[in-house]
């Protein structure tokens, strides 16, 4: 992943940020690149087919796997063969904007009659860079606790309640840890740790808008990370060997882990597991409630010869019909308020029954810094946290290493 991100950065240096003159052809064919596995690709095919039925133009769909999306996007931009529209996570898009690869979407969508006030603000803010809305958010997910109803019942533990505290969470995880079952699994990454750091009153960086250094070693953040390390020390989380043998989501599917932390992205896979009875709950709080934003947005390439057609497609995809199609796929939390609160997303007929948890988290959502070097900073923090969580390296040693490696990356901007 690191190599791919590095390549993405190198390739983007070759970009020439010149927006071509729009050829005002609404029905012109466009190419859409999304990061999707074959099942998710089916959702996008349905979306495109619905768009055509509604009178839209041709859309060529390019679905690329998780690992290859940025590589292909970067080489395509460098060679002037970029897709007209691409879907990208907010943590990955700033380098593209910085190199002039993205055409700000605000004015284009205004012409299509899209009012951003109908959408949740947090993802719009995350995709606002250099004072302009760059891309249009498709979803607004957040970190939640997935829990296995059967394992809770078996251990005689009460289901997680809204607003539960970190101490209650730790006690629950310990109570669930029996024999071959571990209470909880948490990936060692900054996106998993950030909500707890914020909840404890800490910060990840000195200035979220223009970060110059990391602040994970400062008291608030350190205390939150200490609490997680202490939880791991209780033996309520999978061991290094168990994590090496099977991914956390698969351990949850097979009943080896009773709870794990992730975003909405897990839902389709968990739904397919026959006999797995699961639900979602809010994150436990260490102080004030907090969660971390997960969002992807549709961007128009600055090199697109058909920005009008691209904008028309995006307007449909983020509109009521488009968001309903993607919401039914199960993987996304709609960014359009009216669809997020509709049965297409909230219906308890398909698990998780408590999908509202994702919406309840929205007022407390914060996002990690939007800055070009952030993907590399994330990699550094992830590698170091893994040493603390899985190898038992002292927390302070790891935090010092993060400062040493990540701060120069942030200052490099």
């Amino acid at each position: 992943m690191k190599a791919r991100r590095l390549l993405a950065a190198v390739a983007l240096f070759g970009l020439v940020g010149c927006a071509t003159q729009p050829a005002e052809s609404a029905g012109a064919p466009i190419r859409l690149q999304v990061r999707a596995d074959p099942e998710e690709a089916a959702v996008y095919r349905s979306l495109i087919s619905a768009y055509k039925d509604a009178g839209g133009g041709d859309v060529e769909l390019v679905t690329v796997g998780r690992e290859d999306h940025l590589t292909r996007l970067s080489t395509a931009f460098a060679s002037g063969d970029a897709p007209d529209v691409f879907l990208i996570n907010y943590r990955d898009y700033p380098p593209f904007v910085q190199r002039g690869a993205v055409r700000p979407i605000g004015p284009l969508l205004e012409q299509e009659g899209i009012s951003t006030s109908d959408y949740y603000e947090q993802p719009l803010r995350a995709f606002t860079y250099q004072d302009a809305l760059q891309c249009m958010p498709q979803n607004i997910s957040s970190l939640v606790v997935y829990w296995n109803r059967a394992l809770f019942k078996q251990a005689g533990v009460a289901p997680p309640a809204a607003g539960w505290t970190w101490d209650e969470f730790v006690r629950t995880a310990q109570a669930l840890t029996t024999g071959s079952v571990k209470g909880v699994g948490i990936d060692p990454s900054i996106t998993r740790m950030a909500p707890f750091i914020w909840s404890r009153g800490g910060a990840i960086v000195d200035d979220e808008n223009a970060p110059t250094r990391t602040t994970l070693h400062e008291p608030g953040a350190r205390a939150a990370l200490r609490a997680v390390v202490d939880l791991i020390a209780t033996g309520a989380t999978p061991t290094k060997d168990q994590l090496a043998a099977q991914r956390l989501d698969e351990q949850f599917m097979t009943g080896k882990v009773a709870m794990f932390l992730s975003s909405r992205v897990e839902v389709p896979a968990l739904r397919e597991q026959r006999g797995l009875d699961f639900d979602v709950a809010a994150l436990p709080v260490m102080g004030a409630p907090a969660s971390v934003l997960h969002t992807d947005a549709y961007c128009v390439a600055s090199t697109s010869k058909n920005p009008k057609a691209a904008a028309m497609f995006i307007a449909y995809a983020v509109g009521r019909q488009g968001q309903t199609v993607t919401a039914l796929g199960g993987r996304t939390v709609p960014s359009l308020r009216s669809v997020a609160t509709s049965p297409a997303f909230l219906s308890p007929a398909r698990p998780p029954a408590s999908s509202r948890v994702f919406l309840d988290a929205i007022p407390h959502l914060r996002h990690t810094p939007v800055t070009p070097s952030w993907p590399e900073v994330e990699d550094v923090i992830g590698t170091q946290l893994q040493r603390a969580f899985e190898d038992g390296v002292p927390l302070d040693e790891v935090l010092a290493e993060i400062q040493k490696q990540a701060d120069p990356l942030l200052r490099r901007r």
Partner: protein
Amino acid sequence: MIALSVVFLAPLIVMVLGSVQRPLQPPPDGLDLWPDPAQWSNYLAVSRFIPLARLLLNSLLLVVVAVPVTVVVTSMAGLAIVTARGGLRRGLIGVSVFMLLVPAAALWVPRVVLLRGVGLADTPLTVALLALAGTTPFYVLLFALAYSRIPVSLLEAATLEGLSPYAVWRRIALPLGRPAAVAVAALSTLYYWSTFMDPLTLVSSPGNWPVALGLRSLSEMEAALYPIYLAGAVIVTAPALLAFAIGQRSFFSAVERS
């Protein structure tokens, strides 16, 4: 020998057995080998996720074009190295070795820019254009090594007899370097059948992608659908194994004759 075969065959056996497991089951704790009952329908399901027939055809086309071109280009380049003298020869070998040291990732962007610049990007045969550059300098060095065993006097006598450089290559070097040609053909067949990074970066339209890229996308499916991914893997591996089974007699006889 048998023990060694078992080591190499084991992954293939696991792949085949895995391909007939029932999909949508929880991931097994260990190696759940024996399917009960075998789900042959997984093989039909593969084409529901990727346009299998089209991707296979693209790959076949790629191999049929790229492999002969690779053999011709690299064997000519190898002969050029062997017939060069003194500093030039050392220089050519040095350049080939240096090119081998360049990481593949460093070439992705320049290749796309170059091919797009000449209007040759985005066809099923775009990746085959790499064959015009010999695919990899390793094959050139392989031919150079094979040709270096031909007595210099033989090549010089042929030239004195009035044979053109092409005739020397066609009538003397290539027949004598047959084992190297067979080896390069086998290696490049495997390369073009299995490459996914080159088409990912070079070919824009999914309709022109080779089957290895389709398999790559299947590999990202959820764990519960892995039997379908493995069925795809069997389908993609089978032609390569079949080609080896058919070509092995010629391969071994060429090597033994040398």
